[in-house]
């Protein structure tokens, strides 16, 4: 039980080899990580002969996805939807060696068949758009600025391509901001042969999956041509890994908010020295508590889904990795204890619900988790709105052997790193050590056209920490390029780390499977304008213009006189003026009359 990973992988591989029915296979692995958390790892594999796939004869490979892949000439596809952060300090090594998880948000990489770079990019855009419709995710936002072509980080997992490798192009894109929610799970389940209505997939419920501490949904499609010359086949693997907080999952769905427990219900930690009347330190009730499948996932497993081998006898689909001493009860189905003493498996009943109760266990009898081969954490340094720095801490926990890995980063174009500031030094010394970075692949960004791509080959000596740093400038975006929530910051995709064999202290037999680690994504604050600013400017400018125009206009057309020059306005003067005018009129008429008489 030192590492559960490699035995798990190996047993999975073995079980696939032993079982004669290769068309569809599903499996659920339950692995308590800490007394309070549980890793549930769902795996669904389906395969079909390549020839029937090419003739559009679909059985377990879903037609909706198969046709998209054929239309976009995609040979191998890897799609990931991930939320949360894998806590490797307390949970240990990642399931599947990290090969089935993605960075926060959505990550996609694929090998596309094309005759040129431009052609492969066109197919990639087609693929992204089609997948965005299928999975209800904004995958169409993976444009040229988010697309990279990694050199060393990813290797095709397909076996024995007979086509020449020259016309296959690898493209990789990430959307770190993308939210993963029920609308992504719905199409994921619809790809399964039992549509999530039966078998282990009936446990996949958005309310529990998106309440998990960490979850990752993966789809891998690859083709396999065995070297012995037998028929080529296409394989599709769907994986859901989730880490559930047992206490949180057991809360009722209609009342998930923890309310204060009444004093009578409190359980106090007796070991505290300050325990007295009226004071209570609540004990951690969640440690190793008992649980059932229905409590954790909201419902029991609804029968089995195609869990039969070619002879028609039922196969095991639920595995739980707990010591044999821990008591378990099952309703329906059969149990098999494995000779290792740390795991057992169950067959599901055909149509009855399957339920399992795991007894309470004290925290002292809990297994320690395995140690991951590398710890990686990345953060921003510096302050201000113009520039900043990135610092990555990479720790090799092995006390005996050095570790080599590829560190792959894609940065958005508005984050402009300076390659000459890229240094790596051991935490024990402050001077940069040029021998840590063996190789560097770099592709600089072009404004609004592509992002930066950086791939480093790094070797860390045993039991040491390497600090990798570089500085960058922040670009200023155009007013219309800011998203509606610009003040939140801009997400920078997680770095992908691919460990090169041998993996530290890990046993040799696992050296075939790739091991990946991803850092968490970063939130880059960019200088954001006050978005009402243009209106302020317009208003202010208009005001200034109006004032200036008014003054000049006044100066041009008005005549200015002193106040003493203005004639008064009294009744007597008016009367006088009116009388004067009348007098003048009268005298004129009188005069006229006289003239007539003459």
């Amino acid at each position: 039980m030192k590492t559960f990973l490699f035995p798990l992988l190996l047993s999975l591989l073995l079980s696939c080899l032993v079982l004669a029915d290769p068309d569809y296979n599903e499996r659920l692995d339950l692995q308590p990580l800490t007394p309070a958390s549980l890793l549930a790892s769902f795996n669904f594999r389906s395969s079909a002969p390549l020839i029937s796939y090419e003739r559009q004869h679909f059985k377990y490979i879903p037609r909706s996805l198969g046709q998209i892949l054929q239309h976009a000439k995609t040979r191998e596809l890897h799609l990931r939807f991930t939320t949360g952060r894998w806590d490797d300090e307390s949970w240990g090594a990642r399931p599947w060696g990290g090969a089935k998880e993605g960075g926060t948000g959505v990550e996609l990489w694929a090998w596309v068949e094309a005759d040129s770079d431009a052609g492969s990019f066109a197919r990639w855009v087609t693929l992204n758009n089609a997948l965005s419709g299928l999975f209800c995710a904004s995958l169409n936002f993976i444009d040229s600025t988010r697309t990279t072509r990694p050199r060393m980080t990813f290797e095709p997992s397909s076996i024995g391509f007979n086509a020449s490798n020259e016309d296959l192009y690898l493209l990789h894109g990430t959307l770190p901001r993308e939210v993963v929610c029920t609308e992504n799970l719905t199409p994921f389940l619809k790809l399964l042969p039992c549509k999530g209505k039966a078998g282990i997939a009936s446990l996949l419920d958005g309310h529990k999956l998106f309440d998990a501490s960490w979850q990752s949904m993966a789809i891998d499609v690859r083709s396999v041509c065995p070297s012995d010359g037998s028929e080529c086949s296409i394989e599709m693997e769907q994986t859901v890994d989730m880490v559930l907080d047992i206490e949180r999952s057991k809360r009722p769905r209609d009342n998930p908010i923890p309310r204060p427990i009444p004093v009578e219900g409190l359980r106090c930690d007796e070991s505290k020295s300050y325990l007295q009347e009226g004071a209570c330190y609540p004990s951690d009730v969640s440690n190793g508590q008992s649980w059932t499948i229905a409590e954790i996932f909201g419902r029991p497993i609804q029968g089995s889904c195609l869990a039969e081998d070619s002879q028609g006898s039922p196969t095991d689909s639920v595995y739980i990795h707990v010591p044999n001493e821990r008591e378990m009860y099952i309703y329906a189905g059969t149990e098999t204890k494995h000779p290792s003493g740390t795991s057992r498996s169950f067959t599901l009943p055909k149509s009855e619900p399957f339920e399992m109760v795991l007894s309470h266990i004290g925290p002292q009898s809990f297994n320690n988790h395995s140690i991951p081969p590398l710890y990686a954490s990345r953060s921003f340094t510096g302050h201000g709105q113009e520039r900043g720095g990135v610092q990555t801490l990479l720790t090799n926990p092995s006390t005996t052997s050095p570790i080599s890995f590829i560190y792959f980063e894609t940065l958005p174009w508005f984050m402009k790193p300076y390659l000459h500031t890229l240094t790596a030094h051991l935490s024990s010394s402050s001077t940069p050590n040029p021998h840590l970075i063996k190789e560097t692949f770099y592709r600089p960004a072009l404004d609004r056209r592509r992002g930066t791509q950086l791939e480093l080959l790094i070797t860390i000596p045993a039991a040491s920490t390497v600090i990798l740093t570089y500085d960058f400038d922040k670009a200023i975006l155009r007013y219309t390029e800011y998203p509606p929530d610009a003040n939140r910051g801009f997400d920078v995709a997680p770095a992908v780390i691919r460990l090169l064999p041998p993996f530290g202290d890990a046993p040799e037999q696992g050296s075939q499977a790739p091991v990946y680690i991803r850092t968490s994504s970063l939130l880059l604050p960019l200088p954001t304008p006050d978005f009402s600013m243009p209106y302020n400017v317009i208003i202010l400018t208009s005001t200034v213009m109006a004032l200036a125009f008014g003054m000049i206009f006044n100066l041009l057309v008005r005549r200015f006189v002193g106040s003493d020059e203005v004639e008064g306005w009294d009744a007597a003067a008016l009367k006088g003026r009116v009388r004067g005018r009348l007098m003048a009129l009268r005298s004129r008429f009188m005069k006229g009359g006289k003239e007539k008489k003459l």
Partner: protein
Amino acid sequence: MKLLTLLPLTLLPLLTPAHHTSNWAVLVSTSRFWFNYRHLANVLSLYRTVKRLGIPDSQIILMLPDDMACNPRNAFPGTVYNNADRALDLYGDNIEVDYRGYEVTVENFIRLLTDRLGEDVPRGKRLGSDAGSNVLVYMTGHGGNEFLKFQDSEEIGSWDLADAFEQMWEKKRYNEMLFMIDTCQANTLYKHFYSPNIIATGSSEIDQSSYSHHADNDVGVAVIDRWTYYILDFLESQVTSPSSKLTLGNLFDSYDESKIHSKPGLRWDLFPGGEEKGRERLVMDFFGNVQGVEVEGGNETQWREEMRRLEEIITRARARGNVSEGWKSEPPAEQAVVKVERAGKKGVEGAAKVEAGEAWGQRLLGAGALLGCALLWGGVSWLEASR
């Protein structure tokens, strides 16, 4: 005798008043941020209603600008509720969101309505309606006099909407349309519509606000708006089955200003037959689904029909008096991302290896160039001095 029994059957399709062949719904929330939870709840309530009454997911375009169900602030992960009793989870287990997050923009909305989308855009993100489709358009968000805000960063004006609908009519993208809007000063949004066969209704008059109905203390924000709440109340309690014979008149008569706290508006004049005919339309004509089959007639009748429509459009445009001679239609500016890339370039376009050794060569070259310049300058000044 046989002929006589068949006669009523052949007449039946002619007798049905609304001879539409499909139903589409465009449900749009335009507000981002957690405190606008109620706008997403409004839209999701309508989504559940039209789905309940039979419109399939493939004929519903749902636009959600933010994520409320999986928002870290949501105490009920994976759910959206429209009532404090939390009886109905609107998000459920089966939901298809067609446009979400930053994709909900004015441009995308108008492109969706008018079908000016790139060829790569999948079917699920297109409004595939035709001349036989009844389209329900529901919008909610924050608005004002003749505008509706999208995501707090841009606006759609009432003229934009009116022109988009006119283009839909010209492109034969709807048979009849019910336009519903719940926002402040909502009735101003449909003021400028001028395309036929539209019934429009809004939640509040000019200078009136639309209010939220109530808040859920555990969710922490208001969960639904008043006008939508009472429309849903009617739809949930009275339109209980797809065979319901309730009319739009019944629906609009259920408006109660004392409950809604604003004056809802109606617009009938674009509908043939006006209010009288419009009120007779069934609620199910817009909220439910029909699966009609249209048998294409001979080519000649189709051609004549097209000419008649074109003539009609020109007459209406003349009547509005804003037709200008020689007006040319712009081709749709589709995002031709693909063509920007240089074509025909062979070899892998990727990262280049950074060689540390080259730096010395470059330094030498730089030093050489500097030295050359200095020598040139020195030589010339020496020649000058010697003269």
